[in-house]
C-alpha cells in the first residue's frame, strides 16, 4: 500500500475538446498507489470525459497523461489490461446470466475459462450475488446490476479501479451496500479513482479529491482539508415562510457569522459555532420558519467555490 513516489496516473495540462466545446480545460493531478481519489463536481463538470481519457477509451486532445507509466495513445490496450472500469452507464449483457457476464468479460482479457470459473464464484460471493449466479441480468435491481458491474471490473485483478458515478440512480440502501464493498476494496489496498456528484460519497470514500467545475479543477485536498479551508465548522440553515424572508440579512447577521449564502429555498450562515449564532439571531429578533444547525460538508465547499449547488 505504500506509495513509491511515482504516481500511477499523472495528468499535466490535460485538455479534452469536442469540436468547440471544452469538456476538460487544462487540469493537473496525480494519483498515488493505494489511494482513493475522487473527482467531485456537478453534471457537465468534465468528470466523465476525464475518466474516459484515463480509461484509454477516448483520445487526449492536448496536454500529457500517463497511466501506469504508459502513454494511452500508444499503449491503450496494455493499460486497459491492468485497469478495472465501472462505467456510468451499465454495459452488462441482459440476455446472458450473471455468471456468464463475468466469464465472458474475463475472456476479453484473455483469461482462461478454467481460471475464470473459480474467479467468477469468488467475485459473486464478494458482491453477494452468488444465489443469482444463473439468473439473467435483465430482472436484477439497479443495485444488483451495479454490484455485478463492480464484480466484473475486478475480474482481471486491476491495479486501479475507475468508478464513474458508482451509485448514481440507486436508492439509499443500495448505495450503502455499494459503498461498503468499495470500502472493503480500499482496505485491501486497491487504488480507487472515482467521480461523483454526491458529497457524502466523496466524504465516505475519498482520501483526497479535486473539485471540478466547468472543466477546471477549482480545489484539491482531503475532504477535511477542503472543509477547513473553504468553509466553517458549522452551518445554520434558515428557512422562511413565503414572503417573510428579508432581502438583506446584514442587520441580523453582522458580526455574528463569517459568511452568508442566500439560496432560493434557504439561507446558509457559516459560523464556527452554530448554536451561539442561532442564539444571537433570536436576541436580535429574527424569526425564521425553521432553523437547522449542522456540520459543514463538501456541498458547502462547492457552493463557496463556485457559487452553485452540486445537485440542482
Amino acid at each position, binding site marked *: 500500500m505504500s506509495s513509491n513516489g511515482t504516481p500511477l496516473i499523472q495528468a499535466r495540462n490535460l485538455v479534452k475538446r469536442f469540436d468547440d466545446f471544452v469538456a476538460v480545460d487544462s487540469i493537473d493531478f496525480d494519483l498515488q498507489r493505494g489511494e482513493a481519489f475522487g473527482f467531485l463536481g456537478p453534471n457537465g463538470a468534465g468528470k466523465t470525459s476525464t475518466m474516459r481519457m484515463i480509461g484509454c477509451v477516448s483520445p487526449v486532445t492536448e496536454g500529457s497523461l500517463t497511466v501506469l507509466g504508459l502513454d494511452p495513445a500508444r499503449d491503450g490496450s496494455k493499460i486497459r489490461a491492468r485497469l478495472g472500469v465501472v462505467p456510468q452507464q451499465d*454495459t452488462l449483457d*441482459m440476455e*446472458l446470466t450473471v455468471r456468464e457476464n463475468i466469464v465472458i468479460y474475463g475472456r*476479453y*482479457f484473455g483469461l482462461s475459462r478454467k481460471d475464470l470459473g473459480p474467479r467468477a464464484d469468488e467475485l459473486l460471493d464478494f458482491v453477494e450475488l452468488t444465489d443469482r449466479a444463473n439468473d439473467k441480468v435483465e430482472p436484477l435491481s439497479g443495485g444488483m446490476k451495479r454490484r455485478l458491474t463492480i464484480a466484473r471490473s475486478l475480474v482481471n485483478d486491476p491495479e486501479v479501479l475507475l468508478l464513474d458515478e458508482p451509485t448514481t440512480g440507486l436508492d439509499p440502501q443500495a448505495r450503502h451496500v455499494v459503498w461498503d464493498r468499495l470500502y472493503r476494496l480500499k482496505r485491501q489496498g486497491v487504488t480507487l479513482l472515482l467521480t461523483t456528484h454526491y458529497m457524502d460519497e466523496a466524504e465516505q470514500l475519498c482520501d483526497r479529491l479535486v473539485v471540478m467545475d466547468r472543466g477546471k479543477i477549482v480545489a484539491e485536498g482531503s475532504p477535511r482539508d477542503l472543509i477547513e479551508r473553504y468553509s466553517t465548522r458549522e452551518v445554520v440553515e434558515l428557512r422562511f415562510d413565503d414572503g417573510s424572508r428579508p432581502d438583506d440579512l446584514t442587520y441580523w447577521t453582522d458580526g455574528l457569522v463569517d459568511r452568508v449564502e442566500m439560496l432560493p429555498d434557504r439561507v446558509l450562515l457559516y459560523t464556527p459555532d452554530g448554536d451561539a449564532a442561532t442564539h444571537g439571531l433570536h436576541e436580535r429578533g429574527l424569526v425564521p420558519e425553521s432553523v437547522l444547525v449542522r456540520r459543514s460538508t463538501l456541498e458547502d465547499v462547492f457552493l463557496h467555490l463556485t457559487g452553485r449547488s452540486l445537485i440542482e
Partner: protein
Amino acid sequence: MTSVVLVLRPLEFFLTQYKRVWRGSAVTTVITPIVYLLALGVGLGVFVDRSADLAAGVSYLEFVAPGLMAATAMQIASFESSWPVLSAIKWDRQYHAMLATPLRVRDVMLGHQAYFAFRLFLTATIYLIIITAFGAIESPLGVLAVPVTVLVGLSFSAPIAAWAAHAQNEVSFVAIFRFVILPMFLFSGTFFPISSLPTPLEVLAWFTPLWHGVTLCRDLTLGTVSWGDLGHLAYLVGFVTVGLLLARMTYRKRLWV
C-alpha cells in the same frame, strides 16, 4: 499479442449470445430453404420448365437454388449487421464493455464480422445439403458455393455495419431493406437472368454484389465455371474489402471520441 487472438474474443461473446437462441435460428435456417425450393424450384418450376429454355438441360430448380442460397445470405447478413450493430453501440452497449478491456475498436469490428461469417457459413452449409437432397447439384464444385455464399453475405454485412456505426437511429434501416435489399433480392438474377431486364436495370444489376454472387454460385453448382468467374470473385472480394475499410472508419469515428 496478435490481432487474430483479439478478434476471436468478441467472436466468442457473439457465439455465447447465439448459443441462447440457436435452436429457434436453426429451425428457420432449415425450414426456409425447403419452403423456397418447394414453392419456387418445384412448384413454379413446373410452369417455367414447360415454357422457357434456360440453358441446355438445366431445370428451373437447378437454376433458382444457388440463387436463393446467395440471396438468403444477403438477407441474413443485412439484418444481423444493422440493428444488432447499432444496439451494441447505443442500446445494449456491448461494444463499450469490450472497449474497456485490451480489445481495440478494430478487434470489435472484425470480431462482429467474424460472427457474421460464422452464421453465414452455417446457413450456406445447410442450404447446400438441402439443395443436394433436392437433387439440384450438377457438380462437386458446388461445395465451393459455401465460401462464396459467405463472401456474398460479408459484402453486405461489412458496408451495412459501417452504415449502422454511423447512424444515429434505426430509421434508415427500414429504408435500406425496402429500397436496396428487397429490389436486389428480386432483380439480381436470383429468379430470372438479368438479361430479361430493360437495359438500364441490367447495367445497374451488374454493380450489385448479389448478381456476382448468384452467378458465381450458379456456375459452381451447375459445373459451368469459366475464367470469367474469377472476375465475379474479385468483385466480391473488393466489395468486402471496401466495406471493411469503411466500417473501420465509421466505428472509429463513433467509438473513439
